């Protein structure tokens, strides 16, 4: 079954064609990588899928429902969450709070119950806290729950962002360059974490530059160049695709 289906997705910024008629599908429980040179339109694609920018044309459907141009918070509610290329944590909030606030759309207590602190409110707060700790454990940050998140080292911030994305209880997670700037050991850990996400039943789409990561974990690879999809297939197919080689290495080779 396909969780996500993208048809002819196009986004123009003024005269610039960021992405042009991109189409691909992501099977439930799979890991898909989106690769391509810088400026290929990968992040724009993510922005269109998560409602941060509105596509110019085309259709995004999730679980067979069209969700093109949906608002970001609605997308999360449906089960799509994401991380950012340049980490966007709530820097002055603690690690735990970052994950707690992510359960916002899965909780419901209102103003009144917060003021009178009734039973339902207390139970919900308790559950939020426990789940948040669980998610922190998943990414290995359970010992840092009281640290101010802006003070975490870079790699931990990246992992916290993933915990935050998972805390929204998504079916589809979009990771924007999860291993960028990491050393080989951190990269290996991150690959493990991504596999763990799939074991939890999440579908993962990631933007990635590290070919070892891409070839190592993805089932399907989508290659973008100048906003256009030039290839799609399994790691083996992509490795042999002349168009991809050309896009990465130039025409002479």
């Amino acid at each position, binding site marked *: 079954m396909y969780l996500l289906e993208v048809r002819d997705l196009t986004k123009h910024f003024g005269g610039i064609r960021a992405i042009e008629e991109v189409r691909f599908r992501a099977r439930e429980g799979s890991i898909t990588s989106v690769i391509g040179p810088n400026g290929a339109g990968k992040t724009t694609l993510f922005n269109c899928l*998560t*409602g*941060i920018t509105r596509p110019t044309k085309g259709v995004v459907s999730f679980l067979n429902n069209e969700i093109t141009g949906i*608002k*970001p*918070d609605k997308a*999360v*509610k449906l089960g799509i*969450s*994401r991380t*950012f290329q*340049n980490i*966007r*944590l*709530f*820097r*002055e*909030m603690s690690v735990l*709070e970052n994950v*707690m*606030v*992510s*359960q*916002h*759309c*899965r*909780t419901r*207590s*209102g*103003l009144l119950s*917060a*003021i009178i*602190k009734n039973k339902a*409110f207390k139970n*919900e*707060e308790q559950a*939020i806290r426990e789940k948040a700790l669980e998610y922190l454990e998943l990414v290995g940050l359970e010992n840092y729950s009281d640290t101010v998140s802006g003070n975490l080292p870079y790699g931990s911030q990246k992992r916290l962002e993933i915990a*935050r*994305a998972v*805390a*929204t209880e998504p079916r589809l997670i979009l990771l924007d360059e999860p291993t960028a700037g990491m050393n080989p050991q951190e990269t290996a850990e991150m690959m493990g974490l991504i596999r763990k996400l799939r074991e939890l039943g999440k579908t993962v789409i990631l933007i990635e530059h590290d070919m070892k990561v891409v070839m190592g974990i993805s089932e399907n690879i989508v290659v973008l160049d100048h906003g256009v999809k030039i290839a799609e297939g399994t790691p083996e197919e992509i490795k042999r695709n002349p168009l991809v080689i050309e896009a990465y290495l130039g025409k002479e080779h």
Partner: protein
Amino acid sequence: MAESGIQNSKFKIQDSKPGKIHSPFFIALWLSLLFLPFKGIKAASILFVSLLLLLFIFRAFSGYAKILMDKLNAMRESIIERFKAVYAGSEASGMIAYSLLFVFLFAIPFFAKDYFIDVLILAGIYIILAQGLNIVVGFAGLLNLGFVAFYAIGAYSYALLNTKLGIGFWPALPLSLALVTLSGFVLAVPALRLKGDYLAIVTLGFGEIVRLVFNNWDSLTKGPNGIGGIEPPHLFEMHVSRLSHYYYFILFFVVLTVFIIRRVKASRIGRAWLAIREDEIAAASIGINTISYKLYAFAFGAFWAGLAGVLFAAKMQFVSPESFTFMESVLILCMVILGGLGSIPGIILGSVILVMLPEMLREVQLYRMIALGSGLVLLMIFRPQGIFGGKSVSSGG
């Protein structure tokens, strides 16, 4: 925001260049020359000499000043630590601290002068106002420069309901609060499409429009003359008009305000506000409807300003547009920033300081606004995060 963070790091490039160090003589001469046309040669010379002395003293003692600053900082830290210990410590010690505080606050009218109680009542009204503004600026990170508008609407609602329709305090209170909250929504709906500075200026405009309406709608508000003869509140058939009674009355509302706002801050609503303040795009990407939550922040903040307004009108038994100028908005903002954006106890302290200080400086009344102005500049340069070091003021958008 991440973007401004990048901007800031860009700026640092030219910081590495050695800055020019001006001599005290030159600085004193320059400032006195600027002063010269305004007060003549004699005053300018006096200014020159005193500036020169001041700068030399400052330079000579700057080493000591630093030590003094460190000492003060350490003192502040230890006070905060103790506060935190009370907060986080065992229930019992917290309860004891709170009860002591309550007994003290309760006992004040028994030994304090009327004048002092009067000042405290005013401080209480400002605490409520500043806590309300803190929700908008400190929690949700939206700079509101026209907050006084809601204070004015609250005060005028009660004044009009009471004097025109003869509605008493208790039935008028919910009506006024509903009206203010509604006006919070009305302003927020258009304003929230705007970012940062644009939002600030539109809220400022809203504040001015509200004041001008009250000032010019003579048939309803009697214009600049104001509305007098407003009834004080009554409790069990008794008018709360004696100063000490009104003190307790205000104290009750202050405690209620702080209690409720603390609870809301610790809920998912409060967390959502903080997330929006930290990074709006990230907040939307974890499923927070940023538009609605900004709306709630505006309306919830306005609610408290309205309460303060009603209490103010009932205390003074008189309202006029003069009490609701832009300077009032600035003063409330100063309380929030001085106390530390987002910090509830800090803002209580900030409000009390800014109400008390001018009262203590009565002898030098003329200079207090000058002191407030320079104080703001110095605060931003040396301690932008306020006394309680909540959060330093961040981007308004």
